[in-house]
């Protein structure tokens, strides 16, 4: 009965602890991955996950179903992670913007890595470019949207992404999976 999101939401709106636990069990694994991607350490990611789910349960009465439940929860997780990382956002435009088109990675490369390994690569990025890489590449924000959200210039967003891309390619390259065009 508790499997469907509809019942989960109904139960959580009544603050039923069983429903809350069931919702956490259903979505915690999916939501833990984005929490991890934005930080450097597991402890911090778990703090974000914890804070996010508390926000979810506190605000679920406001959830009207305009979007899917997992999408709504993920937005909360990402925003919580961004708030956690905001103090680390001392971002400056990078001067060495490389021609991104010259760096090409074969899609098959990714199948060689587990989710955990790929997320670890992202986690190992420096704070600033990790956040922008996540927002641009994974969440799908555009550079001008990132600029508005993080109150930085569009150029800074692009250069930080470029830096992240370079670093990630190096990491993938270390396993000889990257081909340069």
């Amino acid at each position, binding site marked *: 009965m508790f499997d469907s999101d509809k019942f989960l939401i109904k139960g959580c709106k009544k603050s039923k602890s069983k429903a809350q636990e069931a919702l956490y069990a259903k979505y*915690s*694994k999916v939501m*833990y991955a984005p929490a991890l991607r934005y930080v450097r350490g597991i402890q911090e990611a778990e703090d974000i996950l914890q804070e996010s789910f508390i926000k979810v349960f506190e605000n679920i009465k406001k959830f009207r179903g305009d979007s899917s439940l997992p999408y709504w929860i993920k937005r909360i997780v990402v925003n919580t992670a961004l708030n956690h990382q905001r103090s680390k956002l001392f971002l400056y435009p990078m001067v060495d913007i490389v021609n*991104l088109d010259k760096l090409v990675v074969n899609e098959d490369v990714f199948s060689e890595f587990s*989710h955990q390994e*790929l997320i670890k690569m992202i986690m190992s990025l420096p704070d600033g470019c990790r956040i922008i890489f996540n927002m641009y590449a994974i969440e799908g924000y555009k550079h001008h949207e990132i600029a508005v959200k993080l109150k930085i210039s569009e150029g800074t967003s692009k250069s930080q992404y470029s830096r992240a891309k370079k670093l990630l390619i190096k990491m993938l390259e270390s396993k000889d999976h990257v081909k340069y065009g």
Partner: protein
Amino acid sequence: MDRHSRDREPFANHWRKAVEEAELAPSASVWSLIAKSLDILKYRHRAQIYGLLAAIAVLITISVSIQSQWLGTDPYSGNFYFSQNGVQNSLNDTSLLIGPRTASDRLYFLDLKEKHANSEHPKLVKKSSLLAMDKKILRLDKKEYQLLDKNSVDKKTIIPILASYPMLFLKKSLIIKKDHLWAGINFGGSSFNPNYEIINAGNMLSAGGLNQGFLTDQEGTLTSLNENMLVGINRKIEVNLGMTIKDRFVLEGGLQYVQTELVQQSNFMIETIFYPTSRPVQNPSVIAENMNKGVQKTQEIAYTNTETELKNRIDFASVPLRAGFIFLDQRLSLRVNAGLVTNFYLGNIHRSLDDPTPLAEFTTSNNSLYRNISFSGQTGMSLGYRLLQNIDVTFEPNYTQSFQSITRSYMGFSSIPNGFGVMAGVRYNFN
């Protein structure tokens, strides 16, 4: 996350596809921390609701009180009948305590002869012996006012005139009401702010308290005490008996059952004893035998400092004794109370936040953390509404402040709780 446009560069798309569906399990402690936080929020939320209700009730009470005072000076308040025949103007003198008052279905008259002896207004002519009395009580149901003849008062001109009784509620000489008794039952709750304070943590160990003050492991590592009580809630049920004294004063006593629930935070040193894994498996009797021979020296001991949160439910039986003053005693009544509450500790239970099974139960004994008897003061405003002939519904916001710590002084910490609360119930008036 379908924000990705087709023109997004392949590198970003590859990454998105690679990690978007990723599922990784967080550690089990995350959920338990979330559950604890939700429990705490629930308590805090309830405490806020009680506080808010109390504040709203106080505002309503004050508004009613102010309004009733204002109405008292309004020349158009009150209900009584008077001849309009030239006498109405004299009512501008609001200090006059004249005319009938509809209380307990009686009309009260003062003699107007003296008042108007020197006035230009037509005098009321003594036509009836009833009017000759200085104070005459007329029964409404007997329609005695119709005995006035047409020369003195035209019956047709007897119309309701609204007059004033400034500070009437203080002029009790005009209010002839019998003191009465009532019995009531109230339900309610309040916030419980424990005002927890560590006063002598070192004594906790010897006193058998919750914590040792300072926790020392075998290597001599000290962990400082971290013990706290969070704001909780009280649930109350009360039966009471009350009486009015001299119209305006009230004495009320009762018996309350109070259930306090709060979250108690503490740290514990957990000692774990285990044996090396290389130890050969032995049957229990051999282990016992070896233990007796001193083989236990091979055991390893680990110490872990664990932060824990427990639900603490404390039960009290309380005897409130209140004195009050009635400001308004009509269909809507208002009185202010203050009094002393004697709290008898009945016991307390510790539970984990997510499991209702009691971890430990305490009763009244010398080892109990809590005093068997403690005292607190309570003040409140009681609003009543006459629902039926003898039955009132009541609503009372109140504030309670403990006069002393509810814990024993030698237990190493003190808790002098206070809180805002609301009680609601019904009251049966015997006469």
